[in-house]
């Protein structure tokens, strides 16, 4: 150890860049020529670096604590956000399921022939028919004047199958299901007798609807089941399993 206070002090001042002029040159010369001075300066420099490293480590340690709080808070916040979004989504999903369930239950338990009829009935659209037979009722029917169709039908002396079909639809549209049933059954009979197929599948569907609104369920159900079972039937998609379930619920036990 160098006990020379002045030399050590000069070395420290040299280390701290506080020397200039002759003093600086003298110390530089001493360091260059004196190994003990060089060693002492080296250890002083190490001591200075040790202090700086110690200070930096402590500073990083302090910031570390602060940053871990920040980072953990962010993670917790993100987790919380994800959790909230998840919980919110689950609540919405549960609400949707509940509402849907209630709606389905409501539809099931409040089903009636009238409601089921309204869900499925749509007046036959002559524009969409496949090769409709010529009928004197055709133009009036296309105009949508169902009373006029019925009136015109009553004047026909020899109604043909297409006339019965359009008249049946006119009766059904004007809430005269009994007469509609009569017209459709007559059409089916004429087809059978004459071995023709006028509006055969359309008649099945509208006859079934006529039985439904007329509360003749035991007659309506087999027709709807036949249409539901036949994937090639043009009205197949209109008769769902759900519709049949609701329909079956309306039939009193034993019938």
């Amino acid at each position, binding site marked *: *150890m160098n006990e020379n206070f002045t030399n*050590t*002090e000069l070395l*420290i001042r040299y280390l701290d860049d506080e020397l200039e002029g002759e003093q600086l040159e003298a110390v530089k010369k001493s360091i260059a020529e004196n190994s003990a001075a060089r*060693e*002492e300066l*080296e*250890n*002083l420099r*190490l*001591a*200075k*670096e*040790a*202090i*700086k*490293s*110690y*200070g*930096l*480590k402590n*500073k*990083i*340690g302090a*910031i*570390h604590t*602060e*940053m*871990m709080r*920040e*980072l953990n808070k962010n993670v917790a916040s993100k987790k919380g956000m994800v959790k909230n979004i998840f919980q919110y989504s689950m609540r919405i999903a549960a609400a949707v399921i509940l509402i849907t369930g209630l709606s389905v239950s409501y539809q099931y338990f409040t089903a009636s022939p009238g409601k089921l009829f309204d869900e499925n009935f749509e007046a036959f659209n002559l524009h969409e028919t496949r090769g409709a037979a010529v009928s004197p009722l055709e133009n009036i029917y296309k105009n949508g004047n169902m009373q006029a169709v019925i009136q015109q039908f009553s004047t026909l002396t020899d109604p043909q199958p297409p006339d019965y079909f359009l008249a049946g639809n006119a009766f059904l549209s004007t809430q005269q299901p009994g007469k509609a049933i009569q017209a459709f059954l007559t059409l089916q009979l004429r087809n059978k007798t004459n071995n023709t197929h006028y509006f055969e599948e359309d008649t099945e569907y509208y006859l079934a609807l006529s039985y439904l609104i007329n509360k003749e369920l035991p007659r309506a159900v087999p027709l709807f089941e036949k249409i539901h079972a036949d994937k090639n039937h043009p009205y197949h998609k209109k008769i769902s399993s759900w519709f049949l379930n609701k329909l079956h619920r309306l039939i009193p036990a034993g019938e």
Partner: protein
Amino acid sequence: MEIQGSNADLTLLQTLRSDTNIDEAVRHLYRTQFKMTAAYIKQNNGNDEDAEDIFQEVVLTFIELVKKNKFRGESSVSTFLYALTRNTWLNELKKRGRAKLRDEKFEKGKDTTNINVSDYIINREMKIQLMQLVNSLGETCKKILLAFYFENLAMKDILKLLDYENEQVVRNKKYKCLKQMEQMMTEQPNLAKSLKSILLYE
């Protein structure tokens, strides 16, 4: 100072070299690099505590290397820190006697950075010894030396922190404190040699 954007690395290095806003630079490193380090440590047999300890050491070493111009942006900061982390953790696992396990794991995640940081393997035991050495100085000496060499405060400002009569008294005290440290180094040449390697990176 905002350290972000495409020049984030450059700004970070300038900030560290200029010693102007070290705090913000350290925060930036935590915000951008800690997650990666923690994931790496935990994937390789470490836990949260290991990740925090290693990251502190890596940040300390990184800053010191930048200040000593040992790292001048030859790679991205992220890549360099990853290499430092990997080497430091490898070294730590070796010391923990889990070399076999380490080899298996580290082979899978072989370093693809092509950065050689083997010269800068952080000797954590020596760092602890360094801390003990400074702590042994006593509170007043630590306060004065830290204020002067780390905080870069002027003597008149250091005087305000202490119960001394004037600047000269503080100056004398500072001299004695530094000399005390120098004396410890002289008496323990092996310690001085080891400290030299971890402090000067030479």
